[in-house]
């Protein structure tokens, strides 16, 4: 992808001034470079956050409107977190993305957004509403047959008035439906009154990543309308990062009316453990396998803050044993983006994405952990990919896998994200 001029050339200084957050000032940039120093995308395509701001101040609008770097910046907001002046380059990057001609944008991101518009399901993998319902029903049937202990487990769809409505990343129903079962088992175990929605169920929003605000708004509207219609008190976002940010931020940004509260599944895992409803423990971890955890930027730094990071650590320590948990550094709100966010995984820039991800790889390797837990699908894919690419010997897994493992509920077919050492640990007795 090279420089082009088919899109709009933005006046970045004007955009910057329009986007100015309270108390922040773009012309207050002292050029210290703390943003560039702490940004894993620095140096890719010859650009970094400081250079981006400097060029905006100098009116180099043509260059900024055409640099492919805007697709390598994951909009993780670490620069804004570090900047004493609160300068947020990610918003300028969002505007720059939006100004690109559609045909020049990374095709993977554009295609995923287009897929989301096909149907009210809003699935980036193009899974239609009726297909989703059918896959859920079939997967549930198989679960009933193969794991008789769960013969009564229910997966409500469009159950009006359920306390929780939960979204679902398309990857599971589309590619690995058996991976939905651990989440269902957890919800069943705690006796949650929950439902899926057949509309707007998908937990991804590539339209936000295209920089197309209208498309982002359309996705959020479809979802909010669906959730409002179900009259659920709480919308729980599954183990995913950006799908959380895109909803609450979209509701705020576009002034939508939502009759529900937005919460993260991690918050509820923690709450259910504290309440004794989810009595997980680390007895299964007899070999003292070591675990670290990735803080999804979209969930922690960009949304809930360190409270989400605290809940995440509480859950993980209960699951693996406090002594077997090793934090990567830096962590919590200061953690690095893995390089899987912002659509980078789908942008067709594997070399740059892996160069970005080297920072995450080093962080993980420094912990010497055997496992990385990632409550986000993009983090999961990216950390797994850079592990394979750079030769790391760690395994990447979801929280729901470990929760069910700990409770003795994890079936043999639900272990594809566990290493061989856990293939037979704590198998359900009756299966």
């Amino acid at each position, binding site marked *: 992808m090279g420089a082009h001029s088919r899109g709009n050339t933005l006046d970045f200084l004007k955009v910057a001034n329009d986007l100015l957050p309270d*108390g922040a000032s773009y012309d207050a940039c002292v050029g210290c470079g703390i943003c560039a120093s702490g940004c894993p995308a*620095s140096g890719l395509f010859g650009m970094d956050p400081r250079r981006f701001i400097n060029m905006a101040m100098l009116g180099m609008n043509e260059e900024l409107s055409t640099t492919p770097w805007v697709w390598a910046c994951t909009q993780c907001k670490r620069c804004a977190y570090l900047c004493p002046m609160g300068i947020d380059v990610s918003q300028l990057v969002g505007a720059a993305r939006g100004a690109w001609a559609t045909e020049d944008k990374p095709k993977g991101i554009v295609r995923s957004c287009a897929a989301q518009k096909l149907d009210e399901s809003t699935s980036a993998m193009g899974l239609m509403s009726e297909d989703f319902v059918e896959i859920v029903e079939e997967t549930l049937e198989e679960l009933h047959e193969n794991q008789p202990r769960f013969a009564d487990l229910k997966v409500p769809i469009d159950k009006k008035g359920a306390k929780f409505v939960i979204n679902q990343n398309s990857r599971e129903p589309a590619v690995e439906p058996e991976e939905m079962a651990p989440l269902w088992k957890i919800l069943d175990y705690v006796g949650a009154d929950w439902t899926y929605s057949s509309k707007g169920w998908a937990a991804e929003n590539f339209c936000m990543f295209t920089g197309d605000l209208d498309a982002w708004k359309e996705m959020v509207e479809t979802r909010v309308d669906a959730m409002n219609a179900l009259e659920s008190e709480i919308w729980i976002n599954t183990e995913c990062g950006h799908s959380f940010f895109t909803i609450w931020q979209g*509701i705020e940004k576009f002034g939508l009316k939502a*009759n529900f*509260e937005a919460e993260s599944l991690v918050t509820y895992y923690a709450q259910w453990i504290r309440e004794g409803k989810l009595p997980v423990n680390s007895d299964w971890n007899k070999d003292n396998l070591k675990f670290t955890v990735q803080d999804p930027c979209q969930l922690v730094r960009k949304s809930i803050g360190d409270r989400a990071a605290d809940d995440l650590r509480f859950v993980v320590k209960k699951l693996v044993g406090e002594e077997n948990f090793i934090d990567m550094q830096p962590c919590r709100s*200061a953690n690095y983006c893995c390089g899987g966010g912002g659509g980078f995984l789908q942008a067709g820039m594997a070399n740059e994405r892996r160069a970005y991800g080297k920072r995450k790889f080093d962080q993980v390797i420094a912990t010497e952990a055997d496992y990385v837990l990632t409550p986000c699908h993009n983090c999961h894919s990216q950390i797994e990919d850079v592990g394979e690419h750079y030769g790391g010997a760690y395994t990447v897994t979801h929280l729901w896998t470990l929760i069910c493992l700990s409770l003795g509920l994890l079936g043999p077919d639900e272990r594809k994200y566990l290493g061989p050492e856990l293939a037979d640990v704590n198998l359900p007795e009756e299966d």
Partner: protein
Amino acid sequence: MKRGTRKIETQLAIIGTGIAGFAASIFAGQRGLEVAQFGHSGAMAYTTGYLDLLGVHDQRLQQNPWDALDALRQDEPRHPMSGLSNATIRAAIDGFTDAISDMGIGYTKAGDHNLSGLLPNGLAKPTLSVPDTMRPGITALETGAKTLVVDFEGLQGFSAKAFEVNFRDRWPELSSARLTFPGMENRQVFPEVLARSLETSATQQALAELIRPLLNGVEYVGLPAILGMHMPDEIRARMEEAIGVRLFEVPTIPPAVPGIRLRETFERALPEKGVQLEPQLKVAEVDFRPTGATLHLHGPMEDLEVEASAVLLATGRFLSGGLKSDQDSLSETLLDLPIRQPQDRDAWFRQDYLDPRGHPVNRLGVEVDGRFQPVGADGAPVHERLFAAGAILAHQDWVRQRCGAGLAIATAHAATEAAAAVLG
């Protein structure tokens, strides 16, 4: 969807996340106070990592900061450190260096004299306490030991050749070399990037292998401050073992690793000690009442309301946002505290930019009484439960006086003590 409000209660709310704010958090915690601390990335990433107490007085470098403090009390009685005894200041600094050493960043204990801290451009400056990773370099300079200083292709912020050339007269046995950092070929890199990479043992070994053939009988090897971010002393020990000679770090220009180390260490360790820390949120408003104050903060998703029995303001000066200026006047940004200042902006500056006496504007700031309570024109405290510490205070010029850390730590200690006395 309603924007939620999270409420927390605390005894002492500390506003600011620079050295003064974090020092106050440490001291208040040691005193058993409940602490909540708020702020946004401040100027800490710009430090060399050295803790200066008083490096310049009467326009001269000072080798003995304690004697210099005695002179300061005579010459500048309104300087914020002048009201504190040497014993009090020493106790504060010891408390701080012990605490950060416990948290994982070893610091030298304050001595009776200043050390000659090495600077990236091949100069030295008087400073009280330095990170343990930097201490051997000071000995190397003092003894004129045969030393190799190394830098890296593409590294921003440190030139080994400049370091060598500027030190040549004082340190003839000093030589320099340039290496390509493992895995960082053909690119510009910040010291932070190298430090993160050196957290892994593979990079430590690879770098040691590159350095070993260059030794040629040297006793010491100096590197820019890149020896890892979170356990620099351990990484230095490992690298020393792999290389076989003493190793030391030289600070680099900002943004530099030693400051990032401090910030990340505080962010990690203080919540473990029970501090309710929000290092990403600025306080937007404070409402005072006779028995305390309510602080209002706005997070991305929710608002935060803090009920505090006392407030300690450590928001720094212009760079950190504690003070601001317009064409006519200087003001304090959060509480609009009174700033005693000349009528006319012309009186802010002397004619000559590099005038060694400094500029009057640098000594403007928040006026406090002997209990570090901000006071109004009448000399009475603005609020009974408000205290202030650090660079925001008036009557000091920490940059020229080389007293930044000393000022921050000593006044944070005193302000915390005063707040504790009020809190009972």
